[in-house]
């Protein structure tokens, strides 16, 4: 602790240079926090996938529908103990930027297969018995201030009605919650019957089936059995585990992980040179001062640690500011990341990266300071 004023003073010897370097590192760590936060949120979704659920979708692409008639055949496969379905409704509320994740479902089957989505029994009954009824996730309700009893119009970018319009109206009859991950309760679920009767095309089809299996170890065999059932039909299927399905969905957006790693890697590579150069320059300018420290009894190791301490203080302080900024901004990215707060793992990774950055950029000048020959340095020969 007693060396901190000395380290701090060394850091601020050239105030402007330190501020500019600090700002560069702050921006880099803010970018790291935001990008890695999105990546981590997606990854969390994949890792949290339910091992008992399979997804049956059209082999051509997941946007192609499947016949409703497949339901009974899938239900008859040994090992399957529940089937539900969903379709992609593709809607926004009032303005195209207000995208809403909305899906027509069979309410009973859906909430049976997704026990993590908690919906009170009376609200489930209300959904079943209200043709235009809809239940929404608690996060979605919070976002738009919707409540039970509200009459909500949504505009579908895909599904038109026979009169050519694409505006659908719904009555909110329930709000579900996901206690384990409240931030994921963002869906808008409504009755498939209302959807199927109201649409002008595609009647008798569903987007995909969700299958619950009793034994996850038999997932591969059941997957194969289901796909074999529909082989050589006009709508062949591709069955995936929930985890594979989530990964496949994210791949449609691009290889997020690769993009994040590439951008963050490029930023940190640049940062290495910037910070390394600042540290080297700072030490070069202070050779006589370091020689004086050694003269009055600071050992080679103490001098090395002082210089490393400066690099560590600069990188850690900047990383903390950058990650704090990312934490403040992150809730605004809820629609992209699906979570409201920066995951702790990202903050820990950021601090780890700051320590690594400090070691890599601080070690060469620290070693130079350690190796200083006092007599040469005092005589200005180094």
């Amino acid at each position: 602790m007693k060396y901190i004023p000395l380290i701090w003073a060394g850091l601020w010897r050239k105030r402007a240079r330190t501020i500019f370097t600090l700002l560069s590192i702050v921006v880099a760590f803010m970018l790291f926090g935001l990008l890695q936060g999105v990546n981590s949120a997606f990854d969390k979704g994949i890792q949290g996938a339910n091992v008992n659920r399979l997804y049956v979708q059209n082999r051509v692409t997941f946007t192609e529908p499947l016949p409703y008639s497949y339901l009974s055949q899938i239900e008859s496969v040994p090992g399957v103990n529940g089937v539900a379905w969903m379709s992609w409704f593709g809607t926004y509320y009032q303005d195209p930027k207000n995208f809403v994740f909305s899906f027509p479902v069979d309410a009973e089957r859906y909430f049976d297969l997704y026990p993590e989505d908690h919906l009170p029994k009376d609200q489930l009954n209300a959904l079943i018995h209200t043709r235009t009824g809809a239940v929404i996730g608690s996060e979605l309700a919070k976002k738009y201030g919707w409540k039970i009893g509200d009459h909500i119009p949504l505009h579908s970018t895909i599904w038109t009605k026979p009169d050519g319009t694409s505006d659908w109206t719904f009555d909110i009859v329930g709000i579900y919650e996901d206690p384990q991950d409240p931030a994921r309760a963002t869906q808008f679920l409504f009755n498939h019957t209302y959807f199927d009767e109201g649409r002008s095309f595609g009647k008798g089809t569903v987007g995909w089936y969700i299958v619950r299996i009793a034994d996850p170890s038999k997932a591969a065999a059941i997957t194969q059995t289901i796909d074999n059932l529909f082989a050589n039909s006009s709508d062949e299927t591709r069955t995936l585990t929930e985890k594979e399905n989530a990964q496949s969905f994210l791949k449609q957006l691009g290889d997020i992980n690769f993009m994040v790693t590439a951008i963050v890697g490029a930023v940190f590579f640049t940062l290495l040179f910037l910070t390394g150069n600042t540290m080297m320059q700072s030490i070069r300018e202070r050779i006589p001062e370091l020689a004086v420290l050694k003269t009055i009894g600071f050992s080679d190791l103490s001098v090395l640690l002082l210089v490393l301490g400066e690099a560590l203080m600069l990188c850690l302080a900047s990383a903390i500011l950058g990650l704090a900024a990312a934490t403040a901004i992150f809730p605004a990215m809820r629609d992209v990341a699906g979570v409201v707060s920066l995951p702790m793992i990202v903050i820990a990774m950021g601090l780890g990266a700051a320590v690594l950055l400090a070691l890599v950029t601080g070690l060469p000048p620290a070693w130079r300071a350690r190796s200083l020959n006092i007599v040469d340095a005092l005589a200005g020969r180094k």
Partner: protein
Amino acid sequence: MGSIVSLRNVVKTYMRGKQPVEVLHHLDVEIPEGDFLALMGPSGSGKTTLLNLIAGLDQPTEGELTVAGERIDRLPSGKLAKWRARNIGFVFQFYNLMPMLNAERNVELPLLLTSLGSAERKRNVAAALAIVGLADRAKHKPSELSGGQQQRVAIARALVADPKLLVCDEPTGDLDRETADEILGLLQTLNREHHKTIIMVTHDQRAADFATRQLHLDKGRLVESPQKSAA
């Protein structure tokens, strides 16, 4: 009083390119405790080299070097650093203060290497600044002080850990006559009243006259001094 510095047959050789250059030739010197010694000689005579050896900043090529009861020619670098912290106070020609630290923090530097607590360090710093007459300048940075005041801060830094020996390399070389006399007077006081052994390298005969003894070097050898010569 016994010797605080004892050199026996000390040789120092530097390599200039591939050529060895002997800077000090088989020196035998004894400096008693409590002495105020002026080390004089022309440029290149080896006086700063000798001072560096005595202060433990450099190692002799040959010979025995005992300072403050320790054979320092045998000490490895880490132990030598600790030894310097305990036994030696340094005063340089250009003060060599840390520009970003105020006077108080500069003086405190040697005490960071001790086990003293913060309050005790503060007390010792205040005492050292009072001895050099700069108690009221404790919060000033070097850039806010005159050359003479900076050298006083440097002397306070050299004194604060209560070393046995003060080594001063041209301590008045960068000061005007009047300020130089003040600094030399201060060194004299430290020697007389605080019983500090002082070794001072200087070109200046007027500065050397403040010392109790003078030692003259020429081309790496001790020569007879015209006045106040070493015994």
